[in-house]
């Protein structure tokens, strides 16, 4: 220890906040998921596994013993995972060239480009999302321009589709992919790229064999930063997706709001946590495998 033992005290304020805002509530959510719903929302203190049961299954209204899979919930789960995966891919695909562009600028102008990347964070997410709605709704800007030029006769339905949700989420989360990618590229030794060309590699081969392995940590960090908030996204699917493309965040909010079934909401929330942690572990296992083989 050599007299450094007291230094852990420095993180106690943060630990207290974490305890009050994360661990405590998480514990409460866990407890609620095993209670019965109260009549006007809230919970009544009777232990039951009903909430967990209803996450996966549905009872027939007239014959409670008739049980079937709750496909609505599973659909929302699947949609959330699928849309988040797509969002991650889109962000990676769009973020890579952006980060590359910034990383290859002169040192002085890089700061300006990075600054521009952060500008969207200055405006409230809700307002930005409504602005997207303005662009893509049936009598919005895009449809108006397309109809004015005569390219289409009737407006293209974009609002309340998965496309709208993807567009919104890709827009919101793109900086979270660009920044870690940029950080990885900035650390990269660009003479490696020259070495690649020098050793007869084509552009594609340099990208694949030299650049991508070098920026892999950036991709890993970026994917995690995009995928996790995407799977719990609330505002974007709520406004741009509407009821038809509901995601997990909306389903959970519904249970705590109009649904008046807090235990079910709590169970869904916990299940989401499990899915995210599971996905994370799986992802790191798969991505990290090559390194382990090398080290072994």
């Amino acid at each position, binding site marked *: 220890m050599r007299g450094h033992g007291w230094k852990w005290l420095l993180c106690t304020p943060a630990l207290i906040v974490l305890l009050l805002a994360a661990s405590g509530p998480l514990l409460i959510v866990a407890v609620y998921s095993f209670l019965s719903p109260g009549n006007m929302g809230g919970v009544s203190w009777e232990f039951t596994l009903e909430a967990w049961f209803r996450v996966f299954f549905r009872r027939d209204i007239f014959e409670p013993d008739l049980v079937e899979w709750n496909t609505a919930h599973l659909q929302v789960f699947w949609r959330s995972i699928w849309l988040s995966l797509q969002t991650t891919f889109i962000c990676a695909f769009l973020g890579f060239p952006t980060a590359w562009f910034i990383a290859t600028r002169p040192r002085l102008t890089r700061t300006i480009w990075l600054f521009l990347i952060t500008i969207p964070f200055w405006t409230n997410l809700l307002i930005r999302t409504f602005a997207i709605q303005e662009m893509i709704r049936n009598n919005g800007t895009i449809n108006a321009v397309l109809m004015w030029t005569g390219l289409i006769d009737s407006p293209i339905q974009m609002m309340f589709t998965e496309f709208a949700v993807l567009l919104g989420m890709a827009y919101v989360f793109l900086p979270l992919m660009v920044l870690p990618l940029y950080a990885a590229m900035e650390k990269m030794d660009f*003479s490696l790229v020259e070495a690649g060309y020098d050793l007869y590699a084509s552009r594609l081969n340099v990208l694949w064999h030299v650049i991508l392995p070098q920026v892999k940590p950036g991709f890993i960090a970026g994917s995690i930063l995009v995928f996790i908030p995407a799977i719990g996204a609330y505002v974007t699917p709520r406004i741009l997706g509407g009821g038809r493309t509901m995601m997990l965040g909306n389903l959970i909010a519904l249970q705590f709001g109009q649904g008046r079934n807090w235990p079910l909401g709590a169970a869904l929330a916990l299940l989401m946590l499990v899915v995210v942690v599971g996905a994370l572990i799986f992802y790191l296992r798969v991505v990290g495998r090559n390194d382990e083989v090398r080290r072994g």
Partner: protein
Amino acid sequence: MQKEIEITGLNKSFGQGASAFHALSGIDLSIGSGEFFTLLGPSGCGKTTLLRIIAGFEEPSTGVLKINGKEVTGLGPSKRPINTVFQSYALFPHMSVADNIGFGLKMLGKPKSEIKSTVAEMLQLVRMEAMADRLPSEISGGQQQRVALARALAPRPRVLLLDEPLSALDLKLRKEMQSELKRLQAETGITFVFVTHDQEEALTMSDRIAVMSAGEILQLGPPQEIYNAPVNRFVADFIGDTNFLILRVKEIGNGEAVLELPGGRQASARLPESISPPVGSRVTAVIRPEQAEPTAAGQGEMQAVVEAATFFGTDTHLHLLLDDAQGFVLRRQNRPDQPSPAPGTRLGLSFAPGALRVLED
């Protein structure tokens, strides 16, 4: 000698207009096949830019570059039969030593069996057989250097470019790698173009040296010629140690000048063809520190007083003051039976005919 690289009228400037920086101007150069050619100069002299143009990482602003008789201007580095050993080695950190060495052959689409045998051959050539499966981060700097060499040699390029490859190594390792490089060049017969700012490295390794400064080649020739007959003050100063003396011209004739030495005696010195100083004017003349010998006081061409002596192991540097107060450094081989003279000792200096040369400033 067959020409491997031919450069004519090559210029390179960065930026445009008044703020343009002329990195290279009017480079004419031909490098023979199988030659160990060195570009020598201080940092910022354009030697690395010239190397990068030969490699294809930069395009010349004007001028023609031919490799093996074919013009390559406009071809990218992946289209030139040239490989580079980078200053930072630039080994792919995620690939094993063997994969690094095999990378060029893999990109050329060579069959797996050929890659495998060539990699084994290269590992043997640089004595790294035991390290084939290590990552670059798991081997030492000197070993990384060898891998970088093997990687660049594996595709059997016509020309190997080396960008200050030894500068990151400590002295002992650097000496070792110098002879290693000479051995590799002799064994492979590949043309080596070597960039360095280390004059000793250049002198010991090269067949020919091009001394560069401010984007121009000042002198081009074999090491002996560069050392013994530097064309101007810059080259004389940059290569080895030199005593510069300002002396008066007494007579001119036959490509030689008779100069008045400190103390009144006279000596003749070679005169470069480019200058013809008038009789009575002052010129710069040089004598290398090891080309003068101490004699008894009153004898020799010049008289001097010992100011200080610095011991260097194999030899001692005597810092002398000549009769007209000009400084002079004399290098003297150490011998147990000849202790170096104490400060304050008067002694004479003699030098062989030809040791004294007049230089263009």
